[in-house]
């Protein structure tokens, strides 16, 4: 397999040298890490950035006037600008550090929903949502007497856009949609969905957890109102994420958590909140993680998101062909536009048995419902096996996956 455009070719051997963890052996076999949708690995320059912060920059931010505090503050705010450029946000103040995608969605559900939702309002979600883009909306809906309406999917795992259009009415107050399905890999037509919602005056949050590592994200082109993603899925650390929001909406929203930098002035009678983004960054933030996320964004940008996308498309195409050529395996989720995820079922073998036996061959995949139980219910399966790719994966690793699945089939004869 070669990338269609030679300019997008990836020097995979050089890339892999950056990831020390890929040299591990598991059960005596070379590690084949295909659980990147859960968490991607961290390259050495990013690990080094964390170490440099702790060795020579560690201090609290936005508080003291000494050298280290000023340095840490500058690096933290520079990381914010890196995230801003990564998703082409118009304004660095519209970029909020969160603890991850889930935290970002909760911030919007509680910060926007609690203030603006009323009884009988409706929130549109899709069958493809991760639980973290369902549960926060249910919590707010229950509190406000609002309800959730759901966009169905077809047998390929694609959203029914005509059904989506019909869900809008005068009570519709919000849309939450995932950019890429974590369970199936479906890339949703979010730009079109946002335009439809906006024609009804309805804001849209995009869950970008599975898109940011694989696709070029341009929040201005999408015209989304909110976009959330996680650091640990873009080769950064856990415990850090980004929420982008349109300035006028963020300014109207209630803070979700209180204390620390989100305060301008406090008396026991009244508190005045800080401006955005600080209004939403209560307490001491994960400074090391934020700065390290900045380094991860530098790394991905250095490799090139389009190069990453081209290589991962080749991997997914190859894996799809190989799996389709293997009797007794069914791919779940066959959307026309997919990213980096191959969900499948092995006839007669429960996914957890597949996962345990693949681990024996050093192959790490995810098995389970992937925190997307509505998708599992739609396809009438309790769980699936999910191989998810990153740009550091190789065609040989796809071969190792398929060979390991054949061994599982042999064991279960």
């Amino acid at each position, binding site marked *: 397999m070669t990338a269609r455009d030679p300019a997008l070719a990836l020097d995979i051997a050089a890339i892999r040298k950056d990831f020390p963890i890929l040299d591990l052996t598991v059960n005596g076999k070379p590690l084949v890490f295909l659980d990147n949708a859960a968490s991607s690995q961290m390259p050495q320059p990013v690990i080094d950035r964390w170490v440099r912060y702790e060795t020579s920059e560690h201090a609290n931010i936005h508080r003291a006037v000494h050298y280290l505090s000023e340095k840490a503050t500058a690096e933290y705010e520079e990381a914010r600008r890196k995230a801003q450029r990564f998703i082409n946000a118009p304004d660095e103040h519209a970029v909020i550090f969160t603890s991850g995608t889930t935290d970002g969605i909760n911030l919007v559900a509680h910060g926007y929903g609690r203030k603006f939702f009323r009884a009988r309002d409706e929130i549109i979600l899709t069958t493809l949502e991760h639980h973290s883009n369902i549960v926060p909306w249910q919590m707010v809906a229950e509190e406000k007497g609002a309800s959730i309406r759901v966009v169905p999917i077809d047998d390929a795992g694609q959203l029914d856009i005509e059904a989506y259009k019909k869900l809008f009415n005068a009570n519709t107050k919000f849309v939450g949609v995932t950019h890429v399905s974590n369970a199936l890999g479906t890339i949703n037509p979010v730009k079109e969905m946002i335009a439809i919602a906006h024609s009804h005056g309805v804001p849209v949050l995009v869950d970008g957890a599975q898109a940011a590592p694989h696709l070029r994200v341009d929040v201005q082109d999408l015209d989304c109102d909110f976009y959330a993603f996680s650091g640990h899925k873009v080769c950064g650390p856990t415990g850090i994420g980004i929420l982008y929001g349109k300035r006028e909406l963020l300014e109207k929203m209630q803070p979700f958590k209180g204390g620390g930098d989100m305060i301008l002035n406090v008396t026991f009678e009244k508190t005045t909140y800080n401006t955005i983004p600080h209004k939403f960054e209560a307490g001491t933030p994960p400074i090391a993680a934020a700065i390290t996320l900045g380094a991860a964004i530098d790394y991905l940008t250095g490799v090139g998101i389009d190069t990453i996308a081209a290589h991962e498309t080749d991997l997914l195409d190859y894996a799809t062909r190989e799996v389709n050529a293997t009797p007794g395996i069914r791919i779940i989720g066959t959307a026309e536009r997919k990213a980096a995820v191959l969900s499948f079922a092995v006839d007669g073998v*429960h996914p*957890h*048995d597949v996962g*345990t*036996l693949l681990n024996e061959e050093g192959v790490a995949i995810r098995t389970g*419902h992937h925190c997307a139980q509505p998708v599992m219910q739609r396809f009438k399966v*309790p769980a699936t096996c999910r191989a998810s790719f990153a740009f550091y994966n190789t065609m040989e690793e796809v071969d190792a996956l398929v060979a390991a699945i054949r061994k599982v089939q042999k064991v*279960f004869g």
Partner: protein
Amino acid sequence: MADSKQLYQEVILDHNKKPRNWGALADATHQAEGLNPLCGDRLQLGVKVNGETLEAIAFEGESCAICKASASMMTTAVKGKPRADAEQLIQEFRDMATGNLDTANQPHHLGRLTVFSGVRDLPTRVKCAILPWHTLHAALNSMGTTSTEADDDPMHEPTPGGVA
């Protein structure tokens, strides 16, 4: 490091393929449903207790091989036994699966059920093996639905009538 192939021994694969005592028990005196929300495992267990004896037992449901084989071998082991013996096996099986019973060096009554001893090295699969035993305990004690997630610890006694 556990050798998971060790776990998938012929006897386990055989019970997975041809589970014994499979089906619904029409005249069950005790019933329970066991759920493992992490795997999606779900099994229904029916027991006919006559006096103090487990006269008949049957199960059905959807589960992984470890859970299904464990259920199949469990039903075979306790069928026709006094209730007290079944409760003792439940405890011994749980102790083995969680590493609290060294079947090679400590006395027990598990017999061929020791093929499951390997799960103690695979923490994510311990619940798969224990679920049927958990469910039998729930059935005998009229606890209704039980779940591996009723508490993080599979050794946890299910709450009476509790649902995860």
